[in-house]
């Protein structure tokens, strides 16, 4: 059971991004999905009979997505006769209802649990209609397995297999995600093509949400299996970048505020669950339900949007300045002379109070993060990461990794370092590879490490050295490492990783010819792999043009921050562009590795 029945109300009170400042109409994506879900729940397409009572069962990975994307908030309510919402797991919840509705990804490994759940429920509860909605698309394989392997329609009296087309979820004004947590492992480890298809479909959706869907376009999509993208004029370009071009960045520790929250506590669909109390101070609103104290992280929070993209080292002083400002504004009440002043003061008061509250929240979070970042261990780790990037002092790095293993540090954090070394050097030297493998096996379990190496190898994250690495050339051409850095007042995207610039961000910069340097083409040419370009020649004068950056396989929060930085930089140079990041999922090194490892490394 994921959240108990009496907790169901939590689902309806979320703080998703308001999307009031979206440059392309992302809100329409949410609205469409919401409308479809409402229709589904109101019974238009679910049940025609009199008894519309239903129990909803959701795959665990989708629970947060549903909960925090704002798509299900209206639909999963009592008026729609929703009797209960549960998580799909081996323990069946027998709340009686006439309809049993499943939502899950078309992942074959889930089908066994699904079948067991549905049959057990129906045996105990009695005549029930079962509805299975695959998100975002049903696949033939899933359907085939349910029909021929589990013989679902023979075992149950009424089964409907359908799909709920929710692919892109807007997380913020400029970030949309498919929230496919395991997209990296699906694409790189399992070689599953389905996500690519969903991505292609989602791109079509993006075009439709951007402007009114032109009948010609729809016709084209319906009539042709292969179509050429025609971007609407407001969109100057869409860059589709594969995570495979830059495996290194997610492995590094993100050093922006939002990135560090992700690294230390994890962010799920724009929300994070702090393991400490954030609400400090007397006038802070207490959390209504202590069990659901997840904090939304998006542009609605004006304090957060000021600091999310900043290097963490500068966050403290920004918070301090802001608190001084709030304090000064409060102080102004003493200067109130007449009615006009009072009115002015009262007008600004709610904003100040809100800021006050937010400063409190973020100061608490930042203090907690600071405890980690100031620790010797953390500082050492960062310096080692930077040594790896500069391919400097290999011996010291290896000693460090060895110590991590001997100290039995968490497996993921050790593997991140090792993968980093492998990616930068195009594989580890055979001797080092074997040595590390053996000490890892002794320390973390032999089968675990064999399986981990198998999978990481297949994804290209950890290999034996075969040929020379192109990384030194790339580092030089794409200026991935900045010697001079001003974290407080950055002039380059390198600030997000305190010196290192994600290759992905450089690609975006270079593709747009935005760096103002001559070597943009060199950068693109140095990157291995296929490249293709579709460009919109039509120019629309006046409005600021939009560039969509679609990252397949996941993007980190810090990378998003660098893209926002690029946006600001261009605006200051008088060449304003809006960037919209679309991705399969917002990721981090740990999330990426976790999805690849075939065991639960948190156990």
């Amino acid at each position, binding site marked *: 059971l994921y959240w108990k029945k009496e907790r169901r109300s939590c689902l309806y009170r979320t703080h998703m991004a308001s999307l009031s400042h979206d440059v392309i109409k992302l809100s329409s994506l949410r609205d469409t999905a919401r409308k479809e879900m409402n229709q589904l729940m109101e019974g238009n397409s679910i049940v025609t009979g009199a008894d519309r009572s239903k129990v909803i069962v959701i795959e665990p990975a989708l629970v947060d997505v549903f909960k925090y994307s704002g798509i299900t908030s209206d639909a999963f309510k009592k008026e729609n006769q929703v009797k209960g919402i549960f998580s799909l797991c081996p323990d069946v919840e027998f709340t009686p209802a006439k309809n049993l509705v499943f939502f899950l990804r078309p992942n*074959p*490994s889930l*089908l*066994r649990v699904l079948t067991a759940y549905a049959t057990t429920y129906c045996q105990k509860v009695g005549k029930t209609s079962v509805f299975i909605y695959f998100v975002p698309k049903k*696949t*033939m*394989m899933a359907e*085939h*397995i349910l029909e021929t*392997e589990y013989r679902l329609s023979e075992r149950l009296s009424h089964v409907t297999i359908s799909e709920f087309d929710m692919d892109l979820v807007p997380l913020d004004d400029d970030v949309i995600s498919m929230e496919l947590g395991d997209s990296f492992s699906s694409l790189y480890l*399992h*070689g*599953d*093509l*389905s996500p*690519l*298809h969903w991505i292609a479909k989602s791109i079509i959706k993006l075009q439709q949400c951007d402007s009114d869907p032109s009948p010609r376009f729809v016709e084209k999509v319906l009539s042709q*299996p292969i179509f050429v993208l025609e971007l609407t004029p407001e969109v100057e370009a869409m860059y589709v970048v594969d995570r495979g071009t830059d495996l290194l960045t997610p492995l590094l520790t993100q050093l922006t505020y939002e990135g560090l929250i992700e690294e230390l506590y994890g962010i799920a669909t724009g929300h994070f669950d702090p393991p400490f109390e954030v609400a400090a101070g007397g006038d802070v609103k207490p959390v209504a339900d202590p069990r659901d104290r997840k904090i939304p992280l998006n542009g609605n929070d004006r304090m957060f949007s000021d600091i999310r993209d900043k290097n963490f080292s500068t966050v403290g002083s920004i918070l301090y300045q802001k608190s001084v400002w709030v304090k000064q504004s409060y102080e102004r009440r003493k200067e109130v002379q007449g009615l006009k002043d009072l009115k002015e003061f009262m007008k600004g008061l709610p904003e100040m109070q809100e800021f006050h509250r937010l400063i409190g929240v973020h100061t608490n979070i930042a203090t907690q993060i600071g405890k980690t970042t100031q620790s*010797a*261990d953390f*500082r*050492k780790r960062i310096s080692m990461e930077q040594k790896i990037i500069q391919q400097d002092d290999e011996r010291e790095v290896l000693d460090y990794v*060895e*110590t991590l*293993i*001997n*100290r*039995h540090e968490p497996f993921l954090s050790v593997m991140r370092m090792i993968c980093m070394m492998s990616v930068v050097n195009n594989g580890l030297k055979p001797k080092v590879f*074997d040595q590390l*493998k*053996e*000490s890892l*096996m*002794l*320390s*973390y*379990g*032999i*089968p*675990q490490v*064999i*399986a981990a190496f*198998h999978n990481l190898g297949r994804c290209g994250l950890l290999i034996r050295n075969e040929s020379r690495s192109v990384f030194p050339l790339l580092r030089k051409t794409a200026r991935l490492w900045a010697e001079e850095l001003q974290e407080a007042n950055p002039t380059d995207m390198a600030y997000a990783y305190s010196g290192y610039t994600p290759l992905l961000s450089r690609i975006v910069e270079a593709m747009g010819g935005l760096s103002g340097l001559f070597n943009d083409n060199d950068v693109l040419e140095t990157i291995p792999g296929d490249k293709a370009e579709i460009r919109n020649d039509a120019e629309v004068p006046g409005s600021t043009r939009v560039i969509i950056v679609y990252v397949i396989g996941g993007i980190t929060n810090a990378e998003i921050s660098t893209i926002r930085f690029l946006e600001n930089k261009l605006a200051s140079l008088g060449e304003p562009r809006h960037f919209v990041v679309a991705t399969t999922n917002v990721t981090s090194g740990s999330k990426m590795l976790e999805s690849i490892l*075939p*065991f*639960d490394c948190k*156990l």
Partner: protein
Amino acid sequence: FYDYRGRTIATSQHIQNPLMCCSTGNGVAVVMANGRAASLECEESGEYRARVCDLPRVVGSLPPSCVACVTAQLSDTGYTHLLLTPTLSSIADDGTVVQVTFHSKPRAVDLAKRIAGGSVVRMSVSPDATNVAFITEDGSVYISDVAFKAISLLFNTETEAIPAQLFWCGNAAVAYLHLAQQFTTASPSAGDDDDDDIETTLTIFDPWNRDHCFSMELATDVFGVVECDVYQFLQVVPQEAHRMFQLGSTAPSAQLLSAFDEYALESATSVRLIRALTEDPEGLMVAIDDCVTSAGFEFDSKQQQRLLRVASFGKSFCGTYDTESFVGMSRRLRVLHAVRKPHVGMATSMQQFLTLEGDRFVQRLLTEVISNWPMQFAGTAIIDKFRHYSGLSYRKVAQLAHERKRTRLARMLLEAEPHASSQVEALLDIKEVDAALKKAIESSDPDLIFAVLAYMTGHRGASAVESLSSNSVSRSMLLEYCLACDSRRSLLAEYYRDHPEYNTHLAILQYLDEHDRFTRQLQKSIGSPPMWRTYQERKMTSIQGAELHAKDEHDGVLKERLLRLQSELIDEQTKHAEDLNDSKFLNASVTETLRLLWIHNRGDRAEALAKRWKVTEKALCWIKLRALAQLSDWPAIDKLAGKGTKVKPPISYDGFVHTLVSHGRLEQAKEYIPKVSNIEERMELYLVCDDWFGAAMDCRKTGELGILEQLRERAKGNARAMEQVDRGTAAKMETSPFASLFR
């Protein structure tokens, strides 16, 4: 019984002395010499069953003169009827008809009719089986209903030659055929001159309108008569042509024709004719239409041209004439000419073409092309044509080609199909499975690939594995599918044979699954979960399986050695979990196991195992350090670090510092700092121990003023630290409490 490819499809049946036979639709009816008749018809079971009955005496000993059959579908009883007429000895005798009904008890009945004109020589049942036409020896043509209740004599053929064939053209007309050679042989008395005049003739008549006229209502306006070297194409002359060419016709079209002819001869009559025609514009329009229609009727292109020229001549006097039909006709004629060319060989009348126009005509043309053209030629021709038109389905054409055993042509056509899904489905239709797989992979549509995969595993079973695993996309899908379906696991065995490393991997995954499940149980319960022995056994089985597979691997030496170590470990863990009653052993790694042994005061055993399992000295030192810290055996840690001796521990001192600090032993930790040689590292360690004083003092002592400056920078905002730094900087060397300790 053979099928069209010459394969036996049913067991043979013996019919003695067959005399005559005719098809009954799904079998054959036979008249035998012993005065019996039989039917051999295919039952639903696919077997042929014989039904035999005696014929009435009236049939006599001679073979019947004629047999005809009413098929079961069309007969009024629902059974096959055989009609036969006895051979009579004299032309003066009256004939009769015998009807045999082949139901379960076949019965033959003499209908006892008195048919004048001698033996019936030709008999034909109409296609809808309502009427029968027959001709007697003397040339009398009769028509009757199928039950022979109302027989009527129509006319006499007036020739001695018995027609070679009598047959129905549709249900409304009957035709009989005299062949040219029949006349020469049948009437040798006729002179040679006459021979030329009599040719193969076909007489068509309407049995209900005895005027001998040719006004038949057939589905199309033609039928062909095939001889060995000539194909005769018989066509009804349309009214329009009739009006135009009939002698003495006064129809406007006839006048238009004469006007044109006269004009060509530069005769003044044409002017008069034209004037007359233009006075009646409607008549002129009809005349032009007639010309156009007649052109369509003609086969000779010269004649067509002429008629169209007449039409256009007429058109020039008729401003309101809509040229659409004229243009349409020209186009249609071009098509007909094209398909009539020898390499296409479709002689088609305009009427036929109009009835077939559209899909069915194309269908016929395609059938013709597919069946008879050389492959390369046919393929390119079709693809070339299809390219210009969207919405045409290669799938149907390929299916057609496949039915006609032209597989390569079918492949070639499907190659051109732009729609991946129909392409793949069509390739599966024609059983070109490997090509379908290739195309599906090229399309990178997971549903399509799966469709092929499901088809292949369904039809070929394990033998499909090889081709499926030759491509990474289909391979990963196959593995995913097999892992999700228990019924398909057997397919994996096939895959293992060539990929032992995957086999090892799967066994390991199984182990990990058990391990994770057990660990969850362990976390839930207090003490050992009741089933722990079973879990250990299962884990052991998986590991031994993996070990076995690793042996087959090309490069599995290290893997095999460590997997063996793992099974030793499991044994060891089971023992200790029992002896020391600590379930933590059950899912521990090698180093964790050793650490637990130390904690349980079994250091000797741990040392022995470490040696056996080749745990490095460094790793071992760490294990001891962590175990001792957990046991709070602080003096032992000092001993491990070689305190007071000259022996250096295998690991660096900062390990000791960190471990001690994390256990709150700041003071003890500080003692190790001076042993670290690198000043930067020392500084970090001082800070870990929160010893700003020591750090500052160290800087002063070693004269590292730059570092001292950095230290001050770090201490900013922390008043206590600042104060300590200041104190440390100011302190005299001798006052250092530990300065002499490690010197």
